[in-house]
């Protein structure tokens, strides 16, 4: 079918993979500050990301990332942005609230100062966390406990304004087109009744546009629809472009990817369209756990990875994972809704990011600086943090990188990659993952030096669409995974398929499609597990098992051309030490009861969708 078309243009531009973090807090975030980060502001955060040595916010040691990042979004909480931090230093910007108001504020600030000075500021943070639902209604925002804690500081917009200036100007200062990309952003932190609906918002545009607005926080509205409406009107007013990234769906109590809206209304085509206009990508893995697949799925031996079952609330309640909390079930729900209303509200790509509050984006197990500054050292990780008494620094994971395929490392190209979903998630290692889907890749495509050549010519990359083809019968997937150059070998490559069957039921299946040599598949089709080479006394692993690279051309054996489906790739590394094992060796204690000693780090590609 290939013609000798003289006028065809060959596209020789290569895409490269860039690794970054779109979710990082500095001392401008109230909770980062209250948990002992009072010195790492955006400037230091960018210096760390670019590979420079910096001073740690609490232990004052010199620390440094092993492999620099290619891009970073500093995404501080928009709610009371910088206010708590600034007021601890300087009260001159407070506005008059009348005698009684001023007195109350003085008492509040005094208590805050007192707790900060005696080193118990995290109590303030816990005090401010929401309580679980008290009413029986569906809408968590309308629940009696759905409100936000009231902070009676009066109008603080002038403080927020100059803090926002600091964030914007740090991003402008560190942006190096071609080498390092800094993106301006913030976090909208809606958590009604402890149901986490958080979104990170970033813009590819610069200070000229970002200086025309202040970031939109959950203190203005806790409904995502209101956030999207504001993004729309602000786009129109200033010309800014935005990407909004939902995260920690694992803690959303089923609300992040529900079958109905937060208010309890049905999802309409218009709702789906608006959601997709702003939310092309979801953050699927980070320090507060992994949200890929429901823990305990009987169909998946590798589910229940870094499950973090601790809600963001003032006291502990049982963790009850729901389909609306996890990405794989959400992708399936999306297919069902698309069948009903015509538009899929959950047609998203996947990335990872850290959500670190130390200002130091660290996802390396052997160089992990914690969620908060106060749980970033081995001797302080067993503190109970974030409200829940069963939760500590070892319940968390050194995780989250966003990988982006783009022609160059610039704001424009990274934004475009997010829009077309040519992005993927890793739990920390710099795994290189290419995925293409099509109907007839040339023979030997999986062995070619550069699979991107046949990949782009005969298929679509991750994040793309397939529809009914004319000639061929079943879709093919061209996949290449390469280990982190400084990291561990690979165990296997899997393709995860979700679809709607002929009865309209949601289905899923996990296929092992490529694995390291010398392993057997039993009569039930189960691949033997990879060996564990980690020495528990030294935390070192050996790359004596596993493969450094896995390439495969896979064809779906059970394809039905009339059924909607999605496919994404999961790559597993061989077992390596978790940060808790490094800590237990350093502390010379044998037992750390939160989390396993070794884990299989992984990557998740964005899906490819098939629509009949």
């Amino acid at each position: 079918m290939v013609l000798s078309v003289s006028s065809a243009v060959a596209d020789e531009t290569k895409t490269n993979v860039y690794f970054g973090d779109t979710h990082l807090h500095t001392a401008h975030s109230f909770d980062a500050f209250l948990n002992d980060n009072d010195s790492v502001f955006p400037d230091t955060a960018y210096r760390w990301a670019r590979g420079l040595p910096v001073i740690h916010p609490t232990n004052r040691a010199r620390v440094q990332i092993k492999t620099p990042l290619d891009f970073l979004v500093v995404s501080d909480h928009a709610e009371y942005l910088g206010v708590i931090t600034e007021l601890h230093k300087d009260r001159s910007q407070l506005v008059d609230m009348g005698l009684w108001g001023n007195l109350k504020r003085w008492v509040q600030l005094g208590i805050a100062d007192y707790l900060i000075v005696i080193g118990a500021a995290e109590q303030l943070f816990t005090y401010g966390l929401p309580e679980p639902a008290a009413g029986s209604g569906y809408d968590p925002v309308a629940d009696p406990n759905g409100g936000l804690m009231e902070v009676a500081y009066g109008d603080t917009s002038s403080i927020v304004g100059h803090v926002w200036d600091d964030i914007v100007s740090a991003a402008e200062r560190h942006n190096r087109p071609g080498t390092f990309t800094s993106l301006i952003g913030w976090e909208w932190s809606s958590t009604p009744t402890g149901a986490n609906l958080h979104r990170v918002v970033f813009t590819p545009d610069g200070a000229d546009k970002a200086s025309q607005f202040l970031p939109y926080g959950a203190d203005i509205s806790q409904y995502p629809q209101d956030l999207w409406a504001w993004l729309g009107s602000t786009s129109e007013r200033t010309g800014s472009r935005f990407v909004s990234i939902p995260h920690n769906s694992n803690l959303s109590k089923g609300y992040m990817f529900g079958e109905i809206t937060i208010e309890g209304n049905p999802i309409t085509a218009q709702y789906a369209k608006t959601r997709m206009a702003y939310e092309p990508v979801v953050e699927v893995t980070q320090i507060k756990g992994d949200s890929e697949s429901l823990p305990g799925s009987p169909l998946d031996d590798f589910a229940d990875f870094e499950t973090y079952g601790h809600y963001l609330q003032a006291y502990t309640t049982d963790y009850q994972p729901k389909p609306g909390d996890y990405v794989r079930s959400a992708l399936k729900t999306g297919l069902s809704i698309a069948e009903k209303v015509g538009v899929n509200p959950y047609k998203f790509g996947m990335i990872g990011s850290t959500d670190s509050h130390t200002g130091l984006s660290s996802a390396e197990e052997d160089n992990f600086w914690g969620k908060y500054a106060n749980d970033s050292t081995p001797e302080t990780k067993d503190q109970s943090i974030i409200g829940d008494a069963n939760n500590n620094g070892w319940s968390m994971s050194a995780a989250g990188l966003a990988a982006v395929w783009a022609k160059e490392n610039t704001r424009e190209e990274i934004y475009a990659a997010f829009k077309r979903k040519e992005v993927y998630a890793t739990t920390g290692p710099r795994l290189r993952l290419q995925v293409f889907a099509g109907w007839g890749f040339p023979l030997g495509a999986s062995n070619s030096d550069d699979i991107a050549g046949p990949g782009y010519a005969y298929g679509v990359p991750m994040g793309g669409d397939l529809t009914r083809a004319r000639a061929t019968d079943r879709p093919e997937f061209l996949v290449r995974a390469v280990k982190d150059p400084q990291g561990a070998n690979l165990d296997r490559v899997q393709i995860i398929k979700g679809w709607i069957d002929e009865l309209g039921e949601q289905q899923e299946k996990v296929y092992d499609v490529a694995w390291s040599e010398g392993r057997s598949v039993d009569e039930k089709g189960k691949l033997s597990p990879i060996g564990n080479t980690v020495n528990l006394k030294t935390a070192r692993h050996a790359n004596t098992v596993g493969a450094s690279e896995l390439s495969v051309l896979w064809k779906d054996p059970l394809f039905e051309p009339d059924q909607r489906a999605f496919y994404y790739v999961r790559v597993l590394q061989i077992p390596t030490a978790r940060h808790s094992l490094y800590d237990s060796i350093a502390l010379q204690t044998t037992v750390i009861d939160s989390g396993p000693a070794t884990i299989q780090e992984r990557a998740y590609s964005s899906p490819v969708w098939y629509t009949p």
Partner: protein
Amino acid sequence: MNSFFNKIVKEPLFQFLTIGLILLGGERLINSDDYSDDQYSILIDDQLLAQFMQRQAKSFRPEDALKTIQGLPAIERQSLIENYVKGEVLYREALALNLERDDQIIRRRLMQKMDYLAQGFYDEKPPLTEADLRAYYDSSREDYTKVATATFTHVFIASGKNLTWEQGKTQAMRLLKDLNAGQVPFENSGLYGERFLYNRNYVNRDDEEIGSHFGADFQKEMFSLDLLAPSNAFKWQGPLKSDYGWHLVLVTRRTPIYVPDFQDVSATVLADAQRQQEREIKRLAIDKLVSKYQVEDKAERK
């Protein structure tokens, strides 16, 4: 000793406690009538203790609570009472100090309680007739509207940089002939042209998403192209101009924006209309309360 005292006086905590005591004392002097004996007696019974225990341990089964209370050893009952009394005393003292005034959390909590009361009126709501449902459907058509979508693949010739817009168009026209002569199918579009900034294939994508990738003019043109019968599905069309260059498109499916008939969505309309009715009943109930009040605006205009 003196320096210790100075230190204490400078402690913010000490300052707040002092202020608290002054506020408390002052309040008592002014409102001394409110502190009758009744204020200082707390009556305990089994029912109350059972409720208190249940609130503390939410998993407790209500039917068992009273039995448990009645069978409780005296010492445990005493400690339960002490816990209850502590809370009750703090609550009463806070009310006596009028601490609930100007407290936004308490204000909102009470507002929400009124909100729940208003829901009680739902039971008396009249059943919705078909005429009601049709009226609701007419007034909220936007909720039922199916959005416009298109399914297409495209071959892209970047223009405005290496090629001028004119040169790009000429090249695209030439390529168009070849694509149609060769009957190049949907899945082979990647063999031609350059890689586009966004996607190669667009399957069932809505009009606005297409617009956000290609620009408004392209979006308009895409949705005004002739729709081809499936047998002609290999007709490449174009070139269409985007913000980035020229595109030859193979459109295999397009759905228009349309509103389904009432019959096709009547079940959804019923559910939506009932919700709307409940909201309306609540609104009327609140309006009725508001109408009892006179609002005076003492704005000082210049």
